[in-house]
C-alpha cells in the first residue's frame, strides 16, 4: 500500500518524467567504479558487491521530519540517561520501572563497567533508529534502536553526490535539505568527548561488510582509519603507531566493532581485531570510545519495550514517537496474549540484529507455531512479540517499471555537545514484493531520502 501522493511527490514525478531514464545506469557505474560496497559472506566466500539502489527517493516533508527530529532527540536523550543511570546509580531499576532481573539478564549488560562514567557522560554518540510509517494510524513508529555500531550512512551520502551530478534538475528546482554535514556531526562529537589526542576510526579490516563506510567516514571526518595492530596501549594511554615508528596519542576512537571483539585481554581472548589494553585506557579516562561500551543492553529488543517508560521517567514527557505494540513473554499476562495470538504476531530474538531471528507467525505452520511456543516458554526473556505493522510501501523503479516494495527508514542521530538529527537517512526496501525484511544483509536495497519543503 502506498501513501497518498503528496504535492512534493507530484513535483518529483513531474521532473522525473522529463529525465533521460538511460542515465539511471550511471548510478551503478559510479558504485562499481568507486567500489561503494556492502560486502557479503555467502557459503564461506567473500563477495564484494554494491547495494542495490533505487532512483526513486523517499520524500518526507520538512514539517513531518520536524516531528521525527524532535521525537528522535527526545528518545536518544532518554536512552543516554538510561545507560548512564544503569551503569551508575541504577535508580530506574531500584524504583522498579524496569525489573532488575530483566536488565541483568540482558546479554549486552556488562556488570564489569558498573560505576564507570565515560567522557562527558555521553554513551549514545551515534545512533541508528529504525522507523516505519504505519498505514493504520498514518504515523511513524519506532521499530528498534541501534546504539552499538549502526551502519549505512555512507551510502546515501555517496549516492547524493552522484544524484546531483546525474540529475541536477531535481536539486535546482526543488527545496531539498543538504546532507553533506553528517560526517562533521560525528567529528564534532568526537572532538567534544576527546580525552587528548587524535581521532581514529577503528575498523576490523577490509573484509568487513561495511569497510567502504569505515574508509569513507574516516576520510570525510579527517580521522585516521586504523586496524587494531596499528594502535598500542602504553601506561593506560592509547597511541597511534605512525609509519616512522613514532607514537601519537589517541583521544577518541570511533570503533566499528562490537564490545566482544574490542580488547582480547578483557573480552574475547581469541579476538584478532581488538586492541590489547584499550579497556584499561578507557576505564582510566584516557580515551573516549564511541559508542560507549555496554550500550548493547539498550539494543536489546526487550529493553526497547521500556523506552517510552524511560522517556517519562527521565524527562517527564510523553513520547513523541511511539513504539510498535510489543509484548514481553517475561510477563505472564503478555505470554498468554502471545500464545493466543501467535499466528498474527512477529516473534523476535532480543539479541539478534540485521533481520536475523525474526519469525512471522502468519507464515508458519501449526507445528512450527507449537514448537516456537515451547521455545518461548523455556526461555521467555529471549523473545519479544510485536503486532505485525502494516507499513507503507515505496515506489521503486525496477527493470524500467514502477513496483511497490516495503520500505523502512533508518534515521541517524549524533550526540555530542547537542543532539543532531541528520536531515536524511537510509531508506531500505525489500527486494521482493510482500517481503517485510528490508535489511541490507537480507538482500534489501536502498534509496536516497529527501527532506523537502514546497
Amino acid at each position: 500500500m502506498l501513501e497518498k501522493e503528496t504535492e512534493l511527490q507530484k513535483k518529483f514525478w513531474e521532473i522525473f518524467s522529463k529525465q533521460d531514464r538511460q542515465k539511471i545506469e550511471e548510478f551503478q557505474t559510479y558504485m562499481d567504479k568507486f567500489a561503494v560496497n556492502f560486502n557479503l559472506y555467502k557459503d564461506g566466500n567473500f563477495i564484494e558487491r554494491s547495494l542495490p539502489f533505487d532512483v526513486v527517493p523517499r520524500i518526507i516533508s520538512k514539517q513531518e521530519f520536524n516531528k521525527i527530529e524532535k521525537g528522535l532527540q527526545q528518545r536518544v536523550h532518554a536512552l543516554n540517561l538510561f545507560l548512564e543511570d544503569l551503569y551508575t546509580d541504577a535508580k530506574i531499576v531500584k524504583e522498579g520501572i524496569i525489573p532488575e532481573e530483566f536488565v541483568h539478564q540482558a546479554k549486552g549488560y556488562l556488570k564489569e563497567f558498573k560505576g564507570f562514567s565515560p567522557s562527558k557522560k555521553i554513551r549514545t554518540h551515534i545512533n541508528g533508529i529504525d522507523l516505519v510509517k504505519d498505514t493504520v494510524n498514518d504515523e511513524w513508529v519506532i521499530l528498534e534502536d541501534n546504539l552499538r555500531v549502526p551502519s549505512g550512512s555512507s551510502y546515501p551520502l555517496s549516492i547524493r553526490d552522484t544524484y546531483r551530478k546525474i540529475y541536477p534538475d531535481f536539486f535546482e528546482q526543488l527545496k531539498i535539505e543538504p546532507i553533506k554535514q553528517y560526517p562533521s556531526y560525528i567529528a564534532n562529537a568526537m572532538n567534544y568527548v576527546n580525552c587528548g589526542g587524535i581521532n581514529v576510526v577503528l575498523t576490523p579490516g577490509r573484509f568487513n561488510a561495511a569497510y567502504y563506510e569505515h574508509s569513507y567516514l574516516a576520510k570525510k571526518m579527517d580521522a585516521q582509519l586504523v586496524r587494531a595492530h596499528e594502535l598500542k596501549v602504553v601506561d593506560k594511554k592509547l597511541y597511534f603507531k605512525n609509519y616512522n615508528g613514532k607514537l601519537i596519542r589517541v583521544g577518541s576512537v570511533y570503533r566499528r566493532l562490537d564490545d566482544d571483539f574490542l580488547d582480547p585481554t578483557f573480552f574475547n581472548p581469541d579476538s584478532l581485531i581488538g586492541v590489547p589494553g584499550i579497556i584499561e585506557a578507557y576505564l582510566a579516562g584516557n580515551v573516549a570510545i564511541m559508542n560507549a561500551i555496554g550500550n548493547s543492553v539498550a539494543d536489546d529488543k526487550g529493553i526497547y519495550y521500556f523506552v517510552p517508560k524511560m522517556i517519562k521517567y527521565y524527562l517527564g514527557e510523553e513520547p513523541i514517537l511511539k513504539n510498535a505494540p510489543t509484548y514481553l513473554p517475561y510477563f505472564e499476562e503478555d505470554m498468554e496474549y502471545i500464545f493466543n495470538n501467535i499466528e498474527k504476531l512477529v516473534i523476535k530474538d532480543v539479541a539478534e540484529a540485521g533481520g536475523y531471528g525474526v519469525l512471522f507467525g502468519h507464515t508458519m505452520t501449526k507445528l512450527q507455531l507449537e514448537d516456537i511456543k515451547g521455545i518461548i516458554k523455556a526461555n521467555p526473556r529471549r523473545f519479544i512479540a510485536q503486532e505485525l505493522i502494516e507499513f507503507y510501501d515505496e515506489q521503486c523503479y525496477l527493470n524500467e517499471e514502477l513496483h511497490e516494495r516495503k520500505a523502512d527508514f533508518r534515521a541517524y542521530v549524533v550526540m555530542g555537545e547537542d543532539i543532531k538529527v541528520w536531515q536524511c537517512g537510509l531508506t531500505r526496501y525489500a527486494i521482493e514484493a510482500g517481503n517485510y525484511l528490508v535489511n541490507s544483509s537480507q538482500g534489501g536495497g536502498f534509496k536516497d531520502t529527501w527532506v523537502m519543503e514546497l
Partner: protein
Amino acid sequence: MEHLITANVATSLYWLGRYIERIESSLVHIIAAYDKIIDVKKDAGVELYKKFNIDIEYTDALDFLHVAILGDHTANLTTISGFARENATISRNHINTEIFGEIIALHALFQNLSKSKIDIDYKVVDNAQSLISEIWGELSKRKHKKFSDYFIKLGKVVEETDFCFRFNENETHTNNVINDVYTVLEILSTGDKPDRTYLQTKMGHQEVMDAIHQQIQSVIIE
C-alpha cells in the same frame, strides 16, 4: 607538522605505486614486442619475458597479447592489477577518489577480458595506458598533492629502477632514476637522511634493489 599514516597504509601505497608502474612499463614493452612479432621478429615476446625469467609460448601477435595479459605466469597483468586494486582498497582513504576509481576501472578492464570471450587486441593496451596516464596525471596535480602521495611515488621510482636494470638502460638514465628514489626517500624520512654513496660504487641490479629496500625499511617502520 607530523604526517599521520600507518606503516601498513604506507606500505600499501608503496606497492600500489610499484604495481601501477609495473603494468605501465610492461605494456610499453609488450606493445613494442607485439609490433615486432607481426612481421619483424617472431620470438620478440619470448625474449621480452626472459627478462622477467618467464618462459612463454604463443602462435602469433594477437595470441602473444593474450598470453601477456592473461597467461598463467607471475607477470600476468590481470593478477598484477588485482594486487594494485587490493592495495588501493587498503589505503583508499589516503588516495584521491578519482585515482581510486581509475585503479578499480583498470582492474575491471583486465578482469572482464578473462571473463568474456572478446579477443584481446591493441585497443585493450591503449585503454589500460589511458587509465594509467590518468592516475599519474591526477597524482601530479599540485592542488591534490598530499604527503601520502610520496609513498606511491616511491613505489613508482623503485619499480622504474628495477626496469632500468632488467632492460639495460644507459647508466645516466638509471642513475637519474635511482637519484629520484633517494630524493623521495629524503622527503619521507624523519630520521637520518638516506645514504647516497651507492652512486659512487658500480653496484649491480640486486645490490641496488637490496640497498633501496634497506633504506625503505628505515623510513617505513613496521
